[in-house]
C-alpha cells in the first residue's frame, strides 16, 4: 500500500528541522506563500536566511535587472542567480549547511490558458547537495486553476513546499518528485506543464523523459521540448505564431511526413502570407503506449530522430484534434493547420470519433469555421 504523503506543514517542518538546509525565499506575485509555510511550521530560524518579495516593478528591476515579462523563465532565472549569488557570497560554507534558494514569479488571474479564471507562474529551486558544492536546479511552470485569487495563492504556496521537499528528499527519484508536486492539491487545482532538472544531482536525468512523466502522471495534458531537447512551455514556442501541427507515431518518421510538411508549409505561406511558422510534431500518450506502459527507450529513439531533423516535439494527452486546437488557441490567434493523411481525414469525418461531444461531428469541426 502506498504511504500517505506528508502534509505541507509536515514537509516544511522536516526541512526546518534538517540542519543541513539553509536558504533564501524570493517570491513575486502571489504573496510570500511558500515562506509562510516555513515560518508557520516552527524552527524557521534554522532554515530561513532571508525572505523577500520584490513586489514593485522598479524594486524588482533594481534587484533582478530589467524584464520583458515579469512572469517568465528569464525573470525566474535572474532571481535564482541573484539570490543564490548573495547567499553564497555572504555565507559560503560558514553555516556548515547546504545552501538553497527558492524563487517564484507568479500571476494570479493571469493565465493564458484559463484567462481571468486561473493564474500561472514559474517556480524554481537552486540547491547544494554537498556543503560548498556546485548547486543543482529544478524549474517548473505551473498553472493555478482555482477560481479565487486567495485559493490560487494557497496553491502556489503548497506547490513551492512540494518542490523544495522533492528537491531535498526525492532527488534520486525524479518520477516520485514529480508525483509529489501535486500533494495536497490535486490536478483540479494545479497543473505542471514544464519541469527542467539540471546540475550535478541530475546529471543522469533526461528532461525529455521528465516531460513525458508530466503527461503520464497527469500533471498536464501537454508538454513540449525543442530539437535540442530543451523543455519549453507553449508560450515560448507557438505564442502569436501560425502553427502547423503534425500528429504521428514517428516510428520512424518517413519521407512521406517531410514531403507533407514541405507541401503544407508552402500552401500555408501562400494562403496566409505568413512566415515564421511553428511546426509542431505531436505524439499522443496513446501513440506512445505499448500495452499498459510506455517504452522509454522506444520514446527516446523516436524523439532522437525528430531532434536530429530539427523538430519541436509536443507530447499530449489529447485524443481528438479539436482539443489540441483548443489548447493551441490559448497561445495564438494566427492560423492553425493540421497536416493529415487520407486515413486520418476519414477518421475525422467519422461520427464515432466525436461520440463524447454533445454536438458530435459538427461540434468537432466547429473550430474550423470559428478560427481565422
Amino acid at each position: 500500500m502506498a504511504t500517505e504523503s506528508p502534509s505541507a506543514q509536515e514537509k516544511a517542518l522536516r526541512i526546518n528541522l534538517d540542519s543541513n538546509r539553509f536558504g533564501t525565499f524570493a517570491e513575486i506575485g502571489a504573496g510570500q506563500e511558500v515562506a509562510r509555510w516555513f515560518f508557520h511550521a516552527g524552527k524557521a530560524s534554522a532554515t530561513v536566511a532571508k525572505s523577500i518579495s520584490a513586489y514593485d516593478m522598479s524594486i524588482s528591476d533594481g534587484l533582478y535587472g530589467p524584464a520583458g515579462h515579469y512572469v517568465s523563465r528569464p525573470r525566474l532565472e535572474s532571481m535564482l542567480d541573484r539570490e543564490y549569488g548573495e547567499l553564497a557570497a555572504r555565507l559560503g560554507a560558514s553555516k556548515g549547511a547546504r545552501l538553497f534558494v527558492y524563487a517564484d514569479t507568479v500571476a494570479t488571474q493571469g493565465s493564458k490558458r484559463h484567462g481571468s479564471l486561473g493564474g500561472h507562474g514559474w517556480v524554481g529551486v537552486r540547491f547544494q547537495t554537498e556543503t560548498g558544492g556546485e548547486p543543482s536546479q529544478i524549474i517548473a511552470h505551473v498553472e493555478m486553476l482555482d477560481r479565487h485569487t486567495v485559493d490560487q495563492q494557497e496553491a502556489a504556496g503548497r506547490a513551492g513546499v512540494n518542490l523544495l521537499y522533492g528537491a531535498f528528499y526525492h532527488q534520486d527519484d525524479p518520477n516520485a518528485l514529480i508525483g509529489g508536486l501535486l500533494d495536497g492539491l490535486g490536478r483540479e487545482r494545479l497543473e505542471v506543464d514544464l519541469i527542467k532538472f539540471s546540475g550535478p544531482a541530475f546529471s543522469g536525468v533526461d528532461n525529455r523523459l521528465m516531460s513525458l512523466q508530466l503527461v503520464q502522471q497527469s500533471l498536464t495534458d501537454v508538454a513540449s521540448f525543442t530539437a535540442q531537447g530543451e523543455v519549453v512551455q507553449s508560450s515560448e514556442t507557438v505564442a502569436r505564431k501560425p502553427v502547423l501541427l503534425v500528429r504521428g507515431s514517428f516510428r520512424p518518421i518517413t519521407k512521406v511526413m517531410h514531403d507533407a510538411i514541405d507541401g503544407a508549409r508552402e500552401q500555408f505561406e501562400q494562403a496566409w502570407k505568413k512566415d515564421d511558422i511553428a511546426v509542431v510534431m505531436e505524439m499522443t500518450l496513446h501513440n506512445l503506449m505499448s500495452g499498459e506502459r510506455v517504452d522509454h527507450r522506444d520514446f527516446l529513439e523516436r524523439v532522437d530522430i525528430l531532434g536530429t531533423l530539427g523538430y519541436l516535439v509536443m507530447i499530449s494527452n489529447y485524443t481528438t484534434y479539436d482539443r489540441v486546437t483548443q489548447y493551441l488557441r490559448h497561445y495564438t490567434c494566427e492560423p492553425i493547420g493540421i497536416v493529415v493523411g487520407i486515413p486520418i481525414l476519414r477518421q475525422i469525418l467519422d461520427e464515432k470519433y466525436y461520440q463524447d461531444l454533445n454536438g458530435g461531428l459538427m461540434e468537432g469541426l466547429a473550430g474550423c469555421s470559428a478560427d481565422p
Partner: protein
Amino acid sequence: MKLLVYPTVENGSEQPVTAENVKVADHQKNLYAHLLANSLVEPIRKYDPANLNIRSTDVLAKLQAGDPAWEKMALPEAVELIKSKGLFGYRAPAKAA
C-alpha cells in the same frame, strides 16, 4: 484552422486518393463539399508521387528484417542515426556469402 491533406494510393491503384476525390458517406457529401469549397480542408498539391506507397509500418518491418529497401523511404539523417545507433531493433542486411 484548416486540414491539409496528403494524398495516398490504395488497393494497387495508380490514381492517388486526394482530399478532392476521396469518397465520403452520402449524408456527409454536402458538408464535405462546404469544407473543401471554403478551404477548411485542402489537398496538399505539391508532393512526390514516389512517396505515396511508403507506410511507416512497412519501413519498421523492413529495417527490423534486414531489408535495406527501407533506407530509401526515410531522410538520410534519419537513416544514418537508425543505422549507427541500432534504433527500433535495426538489423543490418545479411552479407552475401
